[in-house]
């Protein structure tokens, strides 16, 4: 990243100091966001490598590319890396970190040093995970279910579990920092109802991080203890209950899905309003829906366990609650769509990704309704139907939104434009590749192919080949932005302060922003998304 600031003369956060030390000891939230961006991108491609191996193995029904042990490690590490080291930190730690202080007119987050600490914690945990990968891996699945994880697996379960444990604290500290920042650091005049929805969604995300993550941490600690000392708190041989692990695990890991998707919704509200030149439709409802998702999201965890041996009554309770949480998500989708009505729509790259997000998230959410229906869940749970469903939410939703946000704020972060034409091509590739990869998996699931299968019945092959073909397009779609975004650091067109004519305080300051974000603390006298007061033209980039 050394080339970034070469030709920019004005003093900004990038050229405020040079050398490794000025980065590694920085307390500037923007620099920390860049540190996160680099480490998360690195982990994303590690996870992506595992995904590639999985899809290659599944080209043929027989398990011929690698042994079943290797395959099991591939999907386990794909899950762990992607969930804990990419998706959960992705938007909050990169975009949230960079933007929240700027959106609220603050100089920094409330606890800059804790912010840096959380990056170091992340790095340590990522290092532990890489150690696991290089040392023979882990094969428990990302879910660490006992008694397999505690007694039967012969792999690095303890270190992998501790890596996730440590990583949790990074997540907690980020969330804590955001909550305090949003409460205490808002610029004068910036009331809660004037806050960009980006901040509302991140607030909801942070609530989940702060309240949910510790439960996962303690649960994995118990697994590690049980494994180290052969004590057996989840071991039925001493009266323990393996299903209790599942309760505790999903108490966090279901809301974790909302940790991934709420920040994506945050990006959507910004991008859609900007490229429709419109105020958001139903601000209050979108904001409250975020909070609603955060609260209701904690009440539905056992829908992952309908066939796990929980009681029938519990299953009924969790099924109906799962339908409750679908309501606020539906509200959001309808409000975004309504926002575009009679707008002035520009199809720049971030907006293309936003279209992709709404479409794919809708499909992901709709298939979630199938899984909440008890009778159907019994048939499709633990099959490729579930795999397809959550990839629609996490890849079709969260990754699309992440890319949308990266493109949208790239000029703000780096001061340069990305190449628009390439951006649109990549967005198209990602959308097409994604659908080809994961649509066939819905069919596979309903026909009955279980997940985590190394070898499978021959009649499933055609659909699997389609899926792998899609994955190769998807991989290309992800490599392209990596290349052209790096290219743009040196050759990209210089972006002005506000290339999109967007609303929001972050666009009122320079690009890249100065170290303390604003020359003087702004005073806010307007509502969010005041696009009626802004120019209606978004310059068309090359």
């Amino acid at each position: 990243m050394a080339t970034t600031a070469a030709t920019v003369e004005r003093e900004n956060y990038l050229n405020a100091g040079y050398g490794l030390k000025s980065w590694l000891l920085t307390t500037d939230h923007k620099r920390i966001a860049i540190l996160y961006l680099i480490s998360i991108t690195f982990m994303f491609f590690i996870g992506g490598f595992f995904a590639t191996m999985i899809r290659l193995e599944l080209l043929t029904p027989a398990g011929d590319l690698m042994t079943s042990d290797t395959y099991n490690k591939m999907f386990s590490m794909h899950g762990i890396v992607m969930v804990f080291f990419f998706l959960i930190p992705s938007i909050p730690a990169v975009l949230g970190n960079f933007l929240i202080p700027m959106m609220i007119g603050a100089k920094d987050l409330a606890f800059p040093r804790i912010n840096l600490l959380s990056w170091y914690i992340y790095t340590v945990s990522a290092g532990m995970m890489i150690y696991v990968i290089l040392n023979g891996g882990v094969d428990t699945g990302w879910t660490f279910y006992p008694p397999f994880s505690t007694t039967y697996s012969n792999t690095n379960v303890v270190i992998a579990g501790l890596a996730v444990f440590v990583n949790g604290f990074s997540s907690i500290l980020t969330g804590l920092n955001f909550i305090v920042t949003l409460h205490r650091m808002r610029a004068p005049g910036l009331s809660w109802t004037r806050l960009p929805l980006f901040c509302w969604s991140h607030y909801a995300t942070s609530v989940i991080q702060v309240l949910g993550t510790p439960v996962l941490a303690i649960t994995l600690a118990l697994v590690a203890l049980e494994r180290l000392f052969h004590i057996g708190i989840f071991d039925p041989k001493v009266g323990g209950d393996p299903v209790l692990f599942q309760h505790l695990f999903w108490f966090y890991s279901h809301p974790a899905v909302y940790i991934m998707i709420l920040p994506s919704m945050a990006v959507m509200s910004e991008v859609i309003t900007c490229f429709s030149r419109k105020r958001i439709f139903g601000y209050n409802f979108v904001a409250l829906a975020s909070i609603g998702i955060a609260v209701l999201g904690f009440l539905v965890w056992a829908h992952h366990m309908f066939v796990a041996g929980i009681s029938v009554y519990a299953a009924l309770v969790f099924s109906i609650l799962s339908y409750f949480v679908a309501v606020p998500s539906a509200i959001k989708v309808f409000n975004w769509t309504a926002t575009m009505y009679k707008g002035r729509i520009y199809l720049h790259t971030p907006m293309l990704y936003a279209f992709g997000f709404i479409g794919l998230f809708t499909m992901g959410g709709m298939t979630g309704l199938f899984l909440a229906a008890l009778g159907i869940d019994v048939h499709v749970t633990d099959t490729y139907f579930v795999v397809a469903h959550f990839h629609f939410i996490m890849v079709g939703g969260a990754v699309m939104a992440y890319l949308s946000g990266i493109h949208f704020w790239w000029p703000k972060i780096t001061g340069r434009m990305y190449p628009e034409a390439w951006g649109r091509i990549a967005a198209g590739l990602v959308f097409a590749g994604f659908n080809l990869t994961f649509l066939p998996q819905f069919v596979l699931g309903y026909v009955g192919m279980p997940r985590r299968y190394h070898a499978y019945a021959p009649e499933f092959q055609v659909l699997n080949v389609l899926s792998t073909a899609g994955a190769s397009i998807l991989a290309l779609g992800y490599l392209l932005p990596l290349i052209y975004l790096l290219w743009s650091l040196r050759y990209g067109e210089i972006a002005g302060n506000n290339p999109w004519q967007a609303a929001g305080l972050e666009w009122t300051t320079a690009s890249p922003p100065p170290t303390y974000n604003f020359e003087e603390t702004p005073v806010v006298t307007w509502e969010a998304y005041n696009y009626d007061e802004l120019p209606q033209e978004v310059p068309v980039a090359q």
Partner: protein
Amino acid sequence: MPSSTEVVAQHSLQHHFANMEQQRESSTLGMWLFLVTEIMFFGGLFASYLVYRLLHPGAFEFGSEHMEFWLGTINTVILLCSSLTVALSVHAAQLGRNKIVAILLIITVLMGLGFLCIKGVEYHNHWVEGSFPGHWWHMDTSTLRGDDVSAAQLFFFIYFVMTGLHALHVFIGMVLLSFIAYFALKGHYTAEYHNPVHVSGLYWHFVDLVWIFLYPLLYLIAHKHA
């Protein structure tokens, strides 16, 4: 010396805060949020406790009978008193009386040490008794029936994790308060700027709160007066 305190106050305001008020409220809110994550951290353990006590009431009663009731009670009293000294030190800090703050905190740390020592004695007794679960388990469970025999280990596992984690928190609290006491001795705090004392105090009170619940849950299930 009002001028010097003002300098200290200016000095202790971090650049990104607008004023002391904002800084104080931020750190207080931050600590409360942290304590909430701690609640959930212990919450996972309490949930396991609840479920297993429900499944194996006999084993839990048995385990509780093997707790050192008086040591636990003394520790409860110690922690409550230490909470009191911390509360008093926060009060002293509000008045800017650094010396009293330091003395009270040192007393607190010593009480924490006492707590840990007693806990150590208890652990030692458990070790002798053979109630460390897993390899080291050799308790006499002949009075137990059925799967309570093995489930007794569950009680002790939960006991050791809960109290061990709590002891770790006591230790962290002691380190934290020692630092605060050190800064207090150096005259760091003023009536305007004493929030580190307050925030660390909150942490210590939380440690006390956890114990308040651990005590009846672990020691008082089956207490019979000797």
